[in-house]
């Protein structure tokens, strides 16, 4: 270790060489008093040495936008995203789900939310090269039993959905093994789950995706209108904990939400529903919306004006995925269908 490259007093550098300290690890493993004794320096000098050495290890936590854009430090890279498994949907989201932050998927019942989240649970297990994160997923069910039959179907058909991935890689991945399912029907179980149980899996790197299906179900049954204050507090707490898990472990968090009717103009405008007559907005209000990074909405109403070259799908099976707000995406939408092998976008 070349001690001259550090910004240290020559006296300290000489003492380091004399004490035969070869690496930063050795310095950090010893206590201040031990270092003093070993190098025969004053405590102020040792403090200075420790500070300089740790500074070089932990670079200044500031990065410029240029560094961010050029991806120099892959720990803070924003280019890496979790792919959805379909190229059309990935283009809509400019790569996929961002790794840090809470993403919400809201929509009416049977719009395809659970299908998309099951697909994500499988996509996360692919190698980085194919848009995954080489790790498992945690699926927290709050209202319904976990659809294991559908998951098995999807696993069997993965080779059809992901034609871009070589077959031997797909065969090697044990999909069912890395999906951890938890049923949390009330708030306390849910709280316990996200504070204690998930962190264990996350620290060991066994999972890198958390899906909560659905967050609205926990709150809409338990709280009436007069309990709004309590509800807001829980929402804030959960949002904060999820966000801190997401940032600490660079894990995407996907929350599924339900919808309510948008009664007034302003509410409809907030979720930019352009289809009159089907004005719904996501549930849980402003408090929850403030915690989100990105909000997606799915609906069964297809976008108008299909192009003539498109294979005609039976009406009613074409759904729309729309970006309501995201800091890095424009307001856009695309159509998709739910097939046997999974969710596929339509160009």
């Amino acid at each position, binding site marked *: 270790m070349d001690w001259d490259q550090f910004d240290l007093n020559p006296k300290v550098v000489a003492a380091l060489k004399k004490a035969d300290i070869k690496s930063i690890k050795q310095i950090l493993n010893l206590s201040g008093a031990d270092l003093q004794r070993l190098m025969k320096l004053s405590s102020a000098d040792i403090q200075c040495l420790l500070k300089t050495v740790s500074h070089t290890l932990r670079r200044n936590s500031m990065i410029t936008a*240029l560094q961010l854009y050029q991806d120099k430090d892959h720990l803070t890279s924003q280019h890496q995203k979790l792919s959805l498994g379909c190229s059309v949907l990935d283009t809509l989201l400019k790569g996929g789900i961002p790794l840090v932050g809470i993403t919400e998927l809201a929509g009416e019942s049977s719009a395809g939310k659970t299908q998309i989240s099951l697909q994500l649970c499988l996509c996360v297990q692919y190698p980085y090269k194919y848009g995954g994160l080489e790790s498992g997923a945690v699926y927290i069910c709050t209202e319904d039993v976990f659809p294991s039959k559908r998951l098995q179907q999807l696993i069997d058909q993965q080779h059809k959905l992901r034609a871009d991935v070589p077959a031997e890689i797909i065969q090697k991945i044990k999909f069912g093994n890395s999906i951890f399912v938890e049923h949390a029907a009330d708030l306390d179980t849910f709280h316990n789950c996200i504070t204690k149980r998930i962190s264990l899996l996350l620290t060991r790197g066994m999972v890198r995706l958390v899906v909560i299906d659905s967050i609205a179900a926990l709150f809409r049954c338990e709280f009436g209108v007069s309990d709004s204050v309590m509800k807001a507090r829980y929402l804030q707490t959960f949002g904060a904990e999820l*966000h801190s898990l997401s940032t600490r472990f660079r894990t995407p968090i996907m929350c599924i939400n339900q919808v309510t009717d948008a009664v007034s103009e302003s509410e409809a405008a907030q979720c930019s529903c352009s289809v009159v007559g089907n004005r719904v907005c996501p549930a849980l209000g402003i408090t929850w919306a403030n915690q989100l990074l990105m909000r997606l909405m799915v609906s069964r109403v297809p976008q108008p004006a299909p192009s003539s070259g498109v294979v005609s799908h039976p009406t009613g099976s074409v759904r729309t995925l729309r970006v309501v707000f995201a*800091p890095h995406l424009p307001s856009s939408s695309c159509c998709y269908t739910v097939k046997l092998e999974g969710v596929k976008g339509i160009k």
Partner: protein
Amino acid sequence: MAAKKLRRARLSEELCERLSRYQITTCQDFLCLSLLELMKVTGQSYYDVQKLLCKVSRACAPKMQTAYEMKLRKSVNPSSAFLSTTLHSLDKVLHGGVPCGSLTEITSPPGCGKTQFCIMVSVLATLPVSMGGLDGAVIYIDTESAFSAERLIEIAGSRFPTYFDSDEKLFCMTSSVHLYRELTCGAVLNRIMSLEEEIISKKVKLIIIDSVASVVRKEFDTKLQGNLAERSNFLARGASVLKYLAEEFSIPVILTNQITTSLSNGLAIQADLVSPADDLSLSEGASGSGKRESGYVTAALGNTWSHSVNTRLILQYHDLLTREDTGLISGYETTSESPSGTS
């Protein structure tokens, strides 16, 4: 300001060296000692120490200036007094743009465009003065991980295609936007305290904090005893340091806030509550009581914070396509509302 280093107070080098041996590095340390102690530490005579005291006090006390001087300064060089947002109607209402030397707050419902506005203003600040910018670096403190470098480049390329025609200009712009990711109140406060050195060394001309509300509201639960006072304390400290920085270096500071609903049904409820208007489907079934709470949306963080910021801008959804910007009470205008252009 008491933490100003003695070296900046124009004391001689060897005196500063001598004082630092006694662990006296800031004006505060110097002024806390008695005359006798100072004489011993500096080794100078009584009269010389008096003169030193005068010098150091003058260095850290705020300077007096007359209103006429201020007006002269602003009229001679109007570009240094405001950062134009390039939204003409907004600039007109704000009498020039985002004011330098004071705190501006932007608040809106989620998804309305606060982060986009902040990113756009960071591009503007790096432009040269001839194009209406401030020709300086930007410090962006991001607490929600919402900053996207690609979006920054997209905005720069689309808004000023003729200026950012080469990669070099883009590199230059992006390398002057300094991003800090802080996740807790304590970290944000520490970062604000340490900004002074960064401003000088990096020639920063704009500070953006996005968003103050998200960290504060997560950590302080106003229902618990004592938390409300602690929260106001934290906000006041942060705001005072930011105001000092803005004033001292004449730069604009932009902060982002969230919207909350305030219930007014007679109960003594604090200002941060959830909207009663969500889950309409549920309440319709249970509306037997008939008592409908009326609420109105307001900026979060309470009254104390509203007093700390100088200008408050509110973005709202106008109709399905446009968003409206309402400039509220600021130091520069007394009218309460003027709907301005669409973004």
